Every structure is written in C-alpha cells, then in structure tokens.
C-alpha cells in the first residue's frame, strides 16, 4: 500500500479536483485504489461519485462528568486541566465542565483523589465508508458543526484505510497546522497543488517548509496555469522542486467541475497525464517504505 496525500497551503487551489481525478483514473485502470477525504471541516470528494454508503462510525471523545456530592472542590482537576475546560468556584460549591474546551486527555480523572470524576463519550463527527462499482473505495471524515478540532476524526478516517489497496489517495485539509500534519504524516508522498498567484506562492512556500521539517518527499502540481504570473515556476526551478504537471486554466474545466463532473472522464489527455504522474511517483518512491 502506498499513500499519497494531496494537499495545499491555500484553500481552493484544486486539491479535491486533483484527488478525485487521480482516484477516478486509477480506478478505470482496475487498480485497487481508495480515496479518503480528510478535509473533515469541508468534505466534498464523495459528491463527485455515484457511491453507496456501506458503513458509518461515530467518532467520540471522552469528557468528564463531575459528581458534585463526592467533589470536595479542592481544585486539583482544574490545576491539571491545560485547556481551561473546568470552571470552579469553591466557596459557592460550583464546578462545571466546559465541554467545548475539553480535549479528552483524562488528566482531571487522574487528578481527582475523591473518585468524583467519571467520563462520558461525546460525538465529534463521523467516518463514512462508501463502495463504488462493488468495491470499498471511499472514506469520508466529517466533523460536526461546532466542534473545535477535526484532528481526531481525521485520525479515525485514516485508520479505516484498507491495507489491501495498492494506492490510497488522502485529500488533505488546507493550511499547514495540525490537521494538515496529521494527514500528510500518514502518507508516503505528498502532492502539493498550487495556483500561479502571489497568494498561491506564499502558501506553497509555507507548505514546502513544513514538509521539509517532517521529511516527506513531495512534488507540485500547478493548477490554473496561464493565469497569474510565472513566480511559482521560478521558485520551483530555483528550489529544485519537481513540477509534476501544469493544469492549464480553461473555463470548460471550471464549469465541468462546478457541476460535480470528473474532468478525466472526458479529457483523456489529462487522465493520461495523471496516470503518468502516479506511475513516476510509485517507481521513484514506491519500493522502500510502502510495506506497512
């Protein structure tokens, strides 16, 4: 199994566009391929396919429940809580858990000497598994509205990946903070999608710095090439970063995508390009550390 994360610092550069088209292309070639949408705050990949939901699992987190009869209002739990999720007014005998702030680390339960803290699960989101053409193929991480961080849901989605697959495509969340790191650190190779604009370049540089720190091999796809300027190309050339392909800016592509169509279905040249990109990645990076 070889995992490829499709990511970008800037949102809206075409991550999902690239991920869904690669997935489609490989499936057409009868490869065992899976697509996991890890953008749990804004998951969109499944909508591009006529997929059948075959399983749902809730992702929960433990939050403390305080038994005020046993509580002595000593304040040790609040001292242990690094997320300010426990509010306590000892003279008034008031103690509250602010569930939105809780990270579920369990420190308060360890802190309490009176056995006054138990835990209950709260739902953070879910992971849906879909089949396409009879094979388990799509996974979607979806965070509930009002939840603070998608990280636990992303982790749960990646755990669901079928190890029998040849290639797994991870559609990563935008940015370079925790959710991005969780996704790309689970991958063997990262495709960064950018656009040839000053915003695109600035965010690309930040993604590149991050991937260098965590030592992941990567290459770049420039989407909407021909709009904007040439600064992204110059930067890649100077930094010796592989430019995998350039996808030209065409209004037809934008229109097809907007209606939920897979462009590689009709644009066979594009499908061939993507197929070649994956072939090259697998032959250059696929042997050493993909047997996990």
């Amino acid at each position, binding site marked *: 199994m070889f995992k490829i994360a499709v990511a970008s*610092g*800037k*949102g*809206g*550069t075409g991550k*999902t566009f690239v991920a869904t088209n690669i997935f489609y292309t490989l499936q057409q070639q009868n490869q065992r391929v899976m697509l996991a949408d890890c953008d749990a*705050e*804004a998951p*969109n990949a499944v*909508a*591009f396919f006529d997929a059948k939901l075959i399983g749902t699992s809730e992702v929960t987190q*433990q939050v403390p429940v305080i038994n005020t009869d046993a509580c002595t209002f000593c304040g040790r739990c609040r001292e*242990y809580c*690094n*997320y300010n999720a426990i509010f306590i007014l000892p003279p008034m005998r008031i103690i509250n858990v602010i569930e939105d702030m809780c*990270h*579920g*680390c*369990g*420190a308060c339960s*360890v802190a309490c000497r009176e056995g006054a803290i138990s835990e209950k699960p709260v739902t953070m989101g879910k992971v849906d598994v879909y089949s396409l053409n009879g094979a388990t193929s799509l996974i979607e991480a979806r*965070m509930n*509205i*009002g*939840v*603070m*961080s*998608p990280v636990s849901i992303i*982790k749960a989605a990646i755990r669901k990946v079928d190890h029998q697959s040849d290639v797994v495509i991870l559609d990563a*969340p*935008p*940015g*370079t*903070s*925790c*959710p*991005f*790191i*969780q996704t790309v*650190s689970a991958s063997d190779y990262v495709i960064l999608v950018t656009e040839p*604009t*000053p*915003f695109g370049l*600035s*965010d690309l540089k*930040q993604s590149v*710095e*991050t991937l260098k*720190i*965590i030592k992941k091999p990567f290459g770049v796809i420039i989407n909407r090439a021909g*709009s*904007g*300027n040439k600064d992204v190309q110059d930067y890649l050339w100077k930094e010796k970063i592989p430019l995998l392909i350039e996808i030209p800016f065409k*209004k037809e592509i*934008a*229109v097809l*995508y*907007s*209606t*939920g169509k897979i462009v590689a279905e009709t644009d066979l040249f594009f499908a061939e390009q993507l197929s070649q990109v994956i072939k090259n990645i697998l032959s250059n990076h696929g042997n050493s550390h993909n047997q996990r």
Partner: protein
Amino acid sequence: METAIISGKGGTGKSSISAAFATLSDNVVLADCDVDAANLYLLFDPSREEEEVYIAGHKAVIDYARCTSCGLCIDYCRFDAISFQNDKVIISQISCDGCFLCSRICPEKAIKMVSNDKSRMYSGSFRNGKMVYGRLAPGEENSGKLVNMVRAKAKKISATTGIGQIILDGPPGIGCPVISTITGADKVFIVTEPTISGLSDMQRAVEIVLKFSLEPRVIINKHDLNSSMTERIMGWCDLNGIEVAGLLPFDPKMVESMVHGKSITEFDPENKISRELRKIWNNNLK
C-alpha cells in the same frame, strides 16, 4: 464595527473581497485572521511596528538520562503519541497534544513540557489604515487563540486611533479559528462559489454562523461560471431566510489585480466586480 468575511470552502475569494472592502472605506483596521495562511500582507506590505510572541501550546520532551523505560506514560497518553521503539520510549511531536499528563504522572520526572513559541503576531500601518496579522508556525495547533489575540489587538488599535471600521479576513473551514473570528462580530459575510463543494461548504458555514446568533450574508463569487448552480444557492438561501448580499462575475482582472499587489477596487475601480463590491460595502455600512 467589526465585519468578518468567512467562506467554509477555501479559495472562493475571501481575501480578495476583504482586500477590496479594506480599500473602499477611508481608514480601516484590517485583521488577517487566517493565521494558518495569512496573505493580505502581500497586497498591503504593512510596516512592522510591533511583534508579539504567541505560545501555541506545549510539547512533551523526554530526558533520557532520567527515563527508566517503565512505559507508564504510554498507558496514560490518550493521543497515541507515546510508544516503545526498540525498548526506548519515543514521543511523537506530531501527535502530542500538550496536555501535560505524562509529565505529571512520570515517577522519574523525566518528561519536560516545552512551549511552542515560534508563532508571531505583527501589527503596523498600511496605505489605508492599520493592519494586524498572525503567523502560525508550521504544524502548530490552530486553536483560535491566535485569532483572539489578533482581534483583541485590532480592537485596541481601533480604540486608540479612533478608526471605527474593523475588517476581519477569516480562515476557511468551520472549526475553532472560524468560531473565534465570528464570535462577537457585528456583521458576517460568507463568500461562496457556484460549485457543488461551494454549496455544501456554504451550508455548513451558515449553520455555524447561525449557531452564534449572527445573521450571515452571502456573496456568490464567479456566479456566471455556473448560473444554474448560482440559482440553486440563491434558492437555498431564500428558503432558509439567508440574505444574498451580491453576485460577482468571473473576471481574470481579479487575479491580475492581485499580481499587481492591489485590490480589485484599486486596480480597476470601474470594473463590474468593483461596482458590485462598492454597493455591497455601502449597504453593509448602513
């Protein structure tokens, strides 16, 4: 008055629209709350008058001179961040949540908590007022606390300079940093585009804004790329009592203005997009 611009989906044109709003009023405080991918400084080249360190949580680090490899910390860690690798206890910096629990329970006091102090907040002046922006260091938790710090600074600047208009360019998504951007704001715009993803992400953004008892107003960018999808979005907004503030046509001038380091309203004031944005902004000020 604080006006927040958010989107759900990334890349819908949030920052370009924020930039236009920031150059339509005479004098504004512009706060870039997309601390994970701050971009407005590229257009406005603000001076750096102040710099503040932001502590983005902590990471656990093992002192191997003290560690006896008892493995107790592994049992307590709920983030699967600690494991044995060749009989050595290893903490994954990627998975560590910084909860301090391992450092508290270690019988040998072999775990130290180190603060993540690489993130920064900057403030200064730009050609149309004052600007505040955060820069989250790669891989750090985007908890919204840095957003709160950016907003607090923007409010302070507004109070001391007497500049009343604060514009908040928000992050994508619907998580904590977005919640931090909209809580207590006076006006919220949601920017979307006429695509399947644009519609579904906008619906999630609307839900989060309503949850905080605010009235979102929707701007549909590049509306003419798919007019039937635009109608679907407008229909959904109508059905749910959400105001559509305006429609912006697709025009390569939007990207061109960015390449020239200008907002669309500065670069091409008579462009259709500029005229529509002026209308939306003037309505917003009422």
